């Protein structure tokens, strides 16, 4: 690990000021991604601003029925929050399917949004990686790529986004609240992460010094019928090979509204908007789900070891929708 300085911030303004003033500075919350990557020399911030003391820990229902979650809310607190569990079960399930109990106890909402890829090559400084070292090349393309993305890839990067929580958030049309040196702004979750394109090193629209302060979940009554399916190599403590966040509004057997997002397959949390549209007005049932699954994976570009993800993602979508349909 490279040497760094560390301070503990007690208010947002000071924390943002500290980071803005130093090019290589980072906020640190739970640290479950950042400290890990610092130990691997993958991230080498020179200055850490610890925001664990910031009072961004509330989960509140706002007047318009939306739910506002403070950026420092721990994953486990969010997962077990009664409002989240009852109104957005897909989010609670996604959170509880991630990492381990210990990690969920430290990992925060803001930190999880900033989680970085598990691409083997990104995490190993001995290997070229465009995301870690722009222009050095992508080792995964011709290397070991079983866990890599099939959607949203570019010729520079096929790293998959690892978060479970983000898959649920994008399905729920969450909004990210950030505050920076020039004030506050809100970013629709779908716009928060960016595709790798020619610049896989750029992962979000967040600017240096901007701090995630909260996420709001708009009211979505039919989200009470929602589900997160995670398919992985072992029963727990494994990243998704494929995951699906799904919500359905079915009335008299007809799909009135649907939400679908995929994890483990995209270079960013992947909303399957076309597939959602294809479901509207259809009879709920396997035929509609299969058709939607085909559409969701239409643009998939597999590599040597991850071709199975195309079929697995389709089947997972069907399974997730079938499961949601059965929720009373």
């Amino acid at each position: 690990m490279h040497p760094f300085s560390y301070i503990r911030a007690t208010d947002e303004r000071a924390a943002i000021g500290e980071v803005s003033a130093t090019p290589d500075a980072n906020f640190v919350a739970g640290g479950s991604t950042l400290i890990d990557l610092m130990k691997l020399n993958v991230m080498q911030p020179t200055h850490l601003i610890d925001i664990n003391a910031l009072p961004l820990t509330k989960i509140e229902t706002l007047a318009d029925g939306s739910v506002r979650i403070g950026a420092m809310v721990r994953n486990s607190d969010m997962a077990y929050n009664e409002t989240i569990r009852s109104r957005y079960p897909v989010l609670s399930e996604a959170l509880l399917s991630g990492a381990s109990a210990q990690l969920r106890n430290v990992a925060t909402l803001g930190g999880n949004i900033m989680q970085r890829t598990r691409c083997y090559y990104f995490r190993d400084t001995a290997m070229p990686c465009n995301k870690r070292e722009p222009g050095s090349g992508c080792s995964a393309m011709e290397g070991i790529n079983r866990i890599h993305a099939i959607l949203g890839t570019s010729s520079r990067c096929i790293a998959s986004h690892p978060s479970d929580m983000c898959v649920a958030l994008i399905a729920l049309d969450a909004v990210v609240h950030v505050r920076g040196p020039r004030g506050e702004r809100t970013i629709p979750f779908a716009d928060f992460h960016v595709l790798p394109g020619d610049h896989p090193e750029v992962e979000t629209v967040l600017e240096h010094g901007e701090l995630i302060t909260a996420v709001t979940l708009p009211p979505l009554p039919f989200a009470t019928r929602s589900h997160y399916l995670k398919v992985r190599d072992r029963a727990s403590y494994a990243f998704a090979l494929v995951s699906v966040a799904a919500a359905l509004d079915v009335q008299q057997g007809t799909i009135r509204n649907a939400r679908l997002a995929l994890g483990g397959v995209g270079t960013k949390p992947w909303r399957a908007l076309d597939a959602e549209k294809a479901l509207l007005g259809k009879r709920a049932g396997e035929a509609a789900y299969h058709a939607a699954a085909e559409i969701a994976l239409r643009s998939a570009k597999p590599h040597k070891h991850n071709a199975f993800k195309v079929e697995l993602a389709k089947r997972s979508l069907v399974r997730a929708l079938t499961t949601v349909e059965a929720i009373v």
Partner: protein
Amino acid sequence: MKRAEEWIGKPMDRVDGRLKVTGGARYSADMPVNNVAYGFLITSTIGSGHIREMDTSEAEKLPGVLAILTPFHAPKMPKGSIKAQSSNQQTGSEQSGGQSGTSGAAGGAQQQGGRGSGQQSAHGSQFGQGSTGGQGGGQSGQGGPQSGQGGQSSGQAKRPPDRRIHLLQETDVFYNRQPIGIVVADTLDRAMHAASLVKVRYQPSSPSLSMKGEMHRAYKPKVAGGHQASPDSEQGDLESGWEMAANRTDHTYITPIETHNPLEPHATIAVWEGDRLTLFDATQGIFPARKRIADLFEIPVENLRIVTHFVGGGFGSKGPVWSHVVLTAMAARQVGRPVKLTLSRPQMFGPIGFRGETQQHLRLGARQDGVLSLVEHHGVVQTSVFDEFIESVGIATRMMYACPNIGTTHRAVRLNMGTPSYTRAPGEAPGMYALESAMDELSYKVGMDPIELRLRNYAEVEPESGKPFSSKSLRECYRVGAERFGWSKRTAAPRSMRDGNMLVGYGMATATYPTNRSPASARARLMADGTAIVQSGSQDIGTGTYTVMTQVAADAIGLPPERVQFQLGDTDLPPTPTSGGSQTAASVGSAVLLAGQALRSRLVQLAIGDRQSPLFGMSESEIVAHNGGIFLKSDGRRGEEFTALLARNGLPQLEARVDAAPGDEKTKYAMHSFGAHFVEVRVDPDLGQIRVARYTGVFGAGRILNAKTARNQFMGGITWGISMALMENTLIDPRTGRPMNADLAEYHVPVHADIPALDVTFVDEVDPYVNPVGVKGIGEIGIVGAPAAVANAVYHATGRRIRDLPITLDKLL
């Protein structure tokens, strides 16, 4: 005197349990050493080539950096250099010719695997004639005279070769993550930071990384790995065995590279005082390590002390001496202060051994009635370009089933990876996966229940040698296992069992592992206060050695276990073999038993010759020792406490020491443990996710010293077997040979949620021939057969036969 068994076999809690769960147990890196500095390895990032330059200037400028040793300025170690082997060449056993003169005469010291000793059969001698000495000397091209042959003097226990290790004596790079330097600093963080700043300039060459790609260069090794057996065997007439078969299977099974990953990473603290060295080292074999390291530093073995109070798992990876241990000692000498080094988790992928890839071609033939007419097992395994280790996959096939025509071969392919090494049940674990999968396939061909097929071919004597088994309870294991598991509920056809939407499959397989024993010594000392200190070098690699030896000593002496303190893990104590090859309980247990009995006998002799003793004039056979005293068998009230006896005779203590060694029992008997695995899996028919739902394992493994720690070991073995079947796979970058999933998040082993409650039982087995303490060893057998049982269950559930492990869900889609 007959042995009274009050404590042996009891499910006694671990005597070190409290220390472990409270953090009081000191593992090697925890040992308090004054003024210790911290070392960190630098490892290569290419798979093959040469180091042109290592620029240490930036690293050296950091505060606290004490030394950086690289191949360009490391101290010379004449016995520590390595050369590449030509691709079709057998490798000698020693790092350099000069070394073999000493390492062969290892006395009581056995290398991991430990099959050499007491196994003076055709297998043992293969090694002796073959690879010690000339070969190694010739190939390494330096390091003194080729006097290796002398190493095998006196027919003493032969130990398998040491691993060739990288000690900064050359600039060649043979594999990715090869140790190429060591940084020492005053803190760990500084050492790690400095290591990251060393810039290495390579001249890379193209590494050989694919078994498939190198198959044409496969060569026949001299011996089959840890078993030190002949690589090939042939009995009967293979072709006619194939011809006469009414049912045949002919398939290749592949197992990938598996990495041990004990919870405790390898760690060493080296402390020099003049030319005397103390090492606190996470090793499975303090005595072999001492010999090896003393030899490399060219110091007398008496000058080297190795202390290992606790080992946090080894599984074979801590058997041989690896580079980091010697480099730490080298660095400590260089900086003139103690140095501590712990491997990082990624550094445990490559430089400390692993289970190499195997490709096993099985041909089985059976008559209409299921009787085997042919068993052929041809293994090709990986080894390194600078050393040789052979995963001896075909050895168990030679002794498993009664069949007139059995053929096995072993071939090796040299790859630019670290040298594979002993990994729990080396040979048997992947070998029995292949054989027991093939037997399962055959059972469907014959149309016979898999258990019945095995019973039809049950070996009443060891097929290869014709020797009787010292004991064999396999039939009982099948019977008890089937009953406990509910095997009769199985419907034979694949995909015929379901639970709701889930496919259900039942699978079974056989387990076997040879019984090993090596020379070992022990000392038992009764103190005036009536407590005993019992000592034997050895090491407890998490298996419960402290506990079971306490039980054995307690019964042997006649003391309650709380009055026995068992000490181990120090080369100042009586010599013992490596804890490997499932031999510690047999070897050390026998020595402890005999030492305890000798001590008891001294006490009895003292009493019956002592006029003031109530037992004066009695004969030894009339007396029992119990609960800290000796008493007349026929009258429990007549006798006395040990304390009274010692006090009256003015003795501050009384001691007995025994050097125990195997006799000729292996020439008379075939000695193996056996067992049977039964598994139920649930498979999601759409998503391919496999979950093990139920598991029964039944074993006949001689005397069980402690039902609790034994069960624990079997559970560990089975868990690893499930892991091998479904998860483990070291992913090697196809261009650079770098292990890419080198951490515990990406290298998958089961979590609790993957393993159901395991039903583990033992059948009662009394074996009077194996060794004095009557144990067969249980460290490895739990894993053997388990992967096949799982794979067979997956086939039964899905109708899909996956012949390359691990069976991940993508293979079932």
